[in-house]
């Protein structure tokens, strides 16, 4: 059987705007991926632990209330510290362009802003999975 793409989707801090993340979860499911939904109020430690235990390929953080500059670098650093830097880290939501540039410089692989289509996100993930070495 081919390797199945597993994606962790979560929201961090007090951000409780869940519609985007649930729409994306269903879209990725329909694209054939296994989506682990962490729920709300995650800390970076919780995301890292979950990403490791579930052995996901992708960690996706939805951020709609301005916490992205605080939380995303913590997730990237936490994964690295735990030896799980092989995971793709993406985020989406209300993220100003200048922050997106900074986040990418800090190790976030891709940032999807308002208006990003779910099909586009699925294609991006599939493209990255295809680039992976056959390990």
């Amino acid at each position, binding site marked *: *059987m*081919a*390797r*199945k793409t*597993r994606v962790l989707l979560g929201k961090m801090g007090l951000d409780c705007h869940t519609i985007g993340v649930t729409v994306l*979860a*269903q879209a*990725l*499911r*329909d*694209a*054939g*991926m*296994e*989506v*682990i*939904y*962490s*729920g709300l*109020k*995650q800390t970076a*430690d*919780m995301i890292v*632990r*979950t990403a*490791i*235990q*579930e*052995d996901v390929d992708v960690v996706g953080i939805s951020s709609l209330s301005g916490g992205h500059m605080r939380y995303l670098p913590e997730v990237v650093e936490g994964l690295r510290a*735990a*030896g*799980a830097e092989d995971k793709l880290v993406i985020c989406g939501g209300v993220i100003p362009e200048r922050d997106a540039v900074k986040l990418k410089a800090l190790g976030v692989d891709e940032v999807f802003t308002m208006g990003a289509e779910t099909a586009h996100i699925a294609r991006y993930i599939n493209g990255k999975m295809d680039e992976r070495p056959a390990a």
Partner: protein
Amino acid sequence: MDLVRDTLAGGQLAGARLIRLLDDEDERGVAALRELYPHTGRAFVIGITGPPGAGKSSLVDCLIAELRGRDTTVAVLAIDPSSPFSGGAILGDRVRMQRHALDDGVFVRSMATRGQLGGLSRSTFEASMVLDAMGYQVIIVETVGVGQDELEVVELAHSTAVVSIPGMGDDVQAMKAGIMEIGNILVINKADKEGADRLEQQLLTMLHLRDYPQGSWLPPLVKTSALNQEGAAELVDSFYAHRQWQIDNDCLESKVVARELHFFQELVRDMASRRMLRRVGDSDAYRQLVSDLAARRVDPYTAAERLVAQSGL
């Protein structure tokens, strides 16, 4: 990363990766499992099954808390369904268990059924061996939400609890064969809800009407409320009581043998049919057989008989 050594040392990266390889049917997973097998067989495997929305995940969350309070390490395999159309899945069981996310003594893994019927995923059995080798003392297997006849968990778990909730049907439902028969423990969850007492009476009646041979285990009825965090201690006690009963009555050994035999037979069946199809599946004779079947020129029994004979068995 050394899959075998790190898994045996309890490493979460290695154990999680190994479960992944096994789930993806990657042969490196099987290679590691061959080496790990002698180190398995130590964990107490508990099954939690019941209909969708019965509160299984929330109940598992309470069980984790109770077991951790008793200084027992816990791993959870939480199964959710794969889409029959896309093959994708949304695995949401661990949402209910978030308070244990930072506990080093807890490991939660979500698995998708990937087309497997019976309430478990294709590789749940193998994943349980990995967690066993990692050293977790109790492994909780939470099935998908089941209907009446998904009983596979009984083969995997040493002790199984069937979770019911008020309002799911009358006493005829309780009498039916299948899921209600398999519980070593019967749980009424959402016992804070109206109808819990009536359900208790129905289940008690069902149990009384059953003809238990002398000396057999009588499934206890445990009322729980995951909402109010009630009943978890009694449920954990019941699991250990069942285990002790199995030990005292020399049933544990036969259960362990039956468990390994079940997995072994599945493996043999799988391997034999794959090899057979590999050997004859690409032949003209096979294609002829299939078209004869479709045209009703041959019946499926005769066709199967011929196919198996052709492969030399």
